[in-house]
């Protein structure tokens, strides 16, 4: 079964604690019969650290889906980082549309420190969604290009 590779940029104020809580609570698709999750977590001090180019680079280099986990709006410790991240993600989605890649491969999720359950739910849903969408064809293309 196709195991989608997901890159998750996690804000250190909310995403990382939620991911650690999720791991401590042993939540996740691993508990069911599905094979283990291919989730690459990248901690950032604030979701606002993530630029549009990072989202696209991740997809270019083989990720099937990219998630940003940020604090709830109005809760950003750097004041508007989560809002910036959201607008960059929306811009990246318009770029994906133009090149014919599915917009659903990018998503932002707002959560808080205590949202271990929400973290694992979002990841689980994304895995299911990406399974239906299939692997990222563009990453195979770039490796083909590299071979020439």
């Amino acid at each position: 079964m196709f195991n989608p590779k997901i890159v998750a940029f996690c804000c250190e104020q909310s995403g990382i604690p939620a991911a650690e809580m999720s791991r401590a609570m042993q939540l996740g698709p691993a508990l069911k019969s599905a094979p283990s999750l291919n989730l690459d977590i990248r901690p950032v001090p604030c979701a606002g650290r993530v630029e549009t180019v990072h989202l696209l680079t991740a997809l270019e280099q083989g990720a099937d889906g990219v998630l940003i986990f940020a604090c709830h709006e109005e809760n950003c410790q750097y004041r508007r980082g989560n809002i910036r991240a959201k607008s960059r993600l929306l811009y990246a989605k318009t770029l994906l549309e133009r090149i014919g890649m599915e917009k659903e491969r990018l998503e932002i999720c707002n959560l808080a420190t205590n949202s271990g359950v929400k973290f694992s739910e979002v990841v689980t849903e994304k895995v299911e969604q990406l399974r239906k969408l299939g692997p990222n064809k563009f990453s195979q293309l770039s490796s083909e290009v590299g071979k020439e």
Partner: protein
Amino acid sequence: MIQSNSDVPISEVGRASKTILLKQDVLILGGGFSGLSVAESLARGGIHVTIVEQGNRLGGRASTGRLCGDRARKANQLGTITAWLEKSGNVTILTQAELVDLQGHFGSFRAKVRKNDGQTVEITPAIIVAATGYQTLRETQGIPETAAGIIYLPEMGKLIDETSGEKLFLEGQHLSAVTFFLDAVNDDIKFDAVNVLEQAIDLVERFTCRVFVICRDLKVSFDGGERLYRKAREAGVLFFKHDVPPDFHLENGRLSISLPDATFVNDEDQQEITLASDVIVLPETCLPGAKIDKLASILRIPLGKGGYLMEDNPQFLRIRSARRGIYVTGACRFPQDLSETRREAEAAAQEIISLLLPGTYDCGPVFAEVDAKKCALCYTCPRLCPHSAITIEKYAEHNIYRILNSGDESMQNAARVEPAACYGCGVCVAECPAKAITLHGESTLFNFN
């Protein structure tokens, strides 16, 4: 199961790009309940602690007034802790002393402490804990005094503890009806409610007083709070809620309190009730300590809501400040019940021990570095850094802005980011007008091969 790149814990991805040494040495500002609790946990963990206390003895408020929750037990605990600390080889105690200057960063602080006799001592801890407490104000809020007067919660507690007979007297007056008036001040502080409930129960059970509690909301969100409230209700304590302040006046030598009976849903049905009381008990207003502005500017951490020292993230290890290596515990962060203070102190000690025990700290994975040759000393980055990790230091060998033949010095001033204190947020990188700052370790975060 959530996996990171390897078996490394999630938040440790890509670290070990630069390492600093850490001494097992902590400076604690404040010798009250909070500071002493942290000191005890750290010293028992093998870490050397210096306690700097502004007064002439340790213990703070908890050792004099009667504070809250299980008062006798907490007060005894403090005595044992203080005695242990004074004997421990791992502890240096400086009384009648205060912090006057702080340089350096996490792992390499240089603190100047001045004693009352004018001597200064330099201390070089790896970590600093601010536990300087709070101050209180007594405000009568315009309430007239009966013969028994107006009494504040700490004194009422003391009076209850020290009276052995069956009747309670204050200023020669027998107290048959006592009213507690809450929430006109301290509207987000919980420990008034603890004190009031415990005292109310004592007053009814030991001295057969009629007890009224007037409050806006009764804050029972502490361990055992709901049970304590139920016990008070079952003992016969009467609780009244108020939205607007009640009317207080004197009648026949007693205090007469009028307020609408809020148990009716419709305002029109609410009848006015009048309570007659011999004395009114008020909470002391809690305020940040008198020198907290000065402390915040010496430590270079911000003040938060209400003027207390600001924690980094109230939901998540609220004992951290905006600066790595500086912790804020106890009432200087927010006045609270002693059991919560104890828990915060233990949390801080745990984090400090786990940071210091390895002996080194791996900076990164992402941290900023200033190209000293290009720094124009515009002071933008030290002002902007949310974590106070940038200082101006003399370490640049060359600087393109140095005026030629202007009195040669071997090293130039330039902004410097301390890697151990940097959080990698990138604000300085974005804002430097000369584009003189780069972010190291970006590739570890944004490389997906």
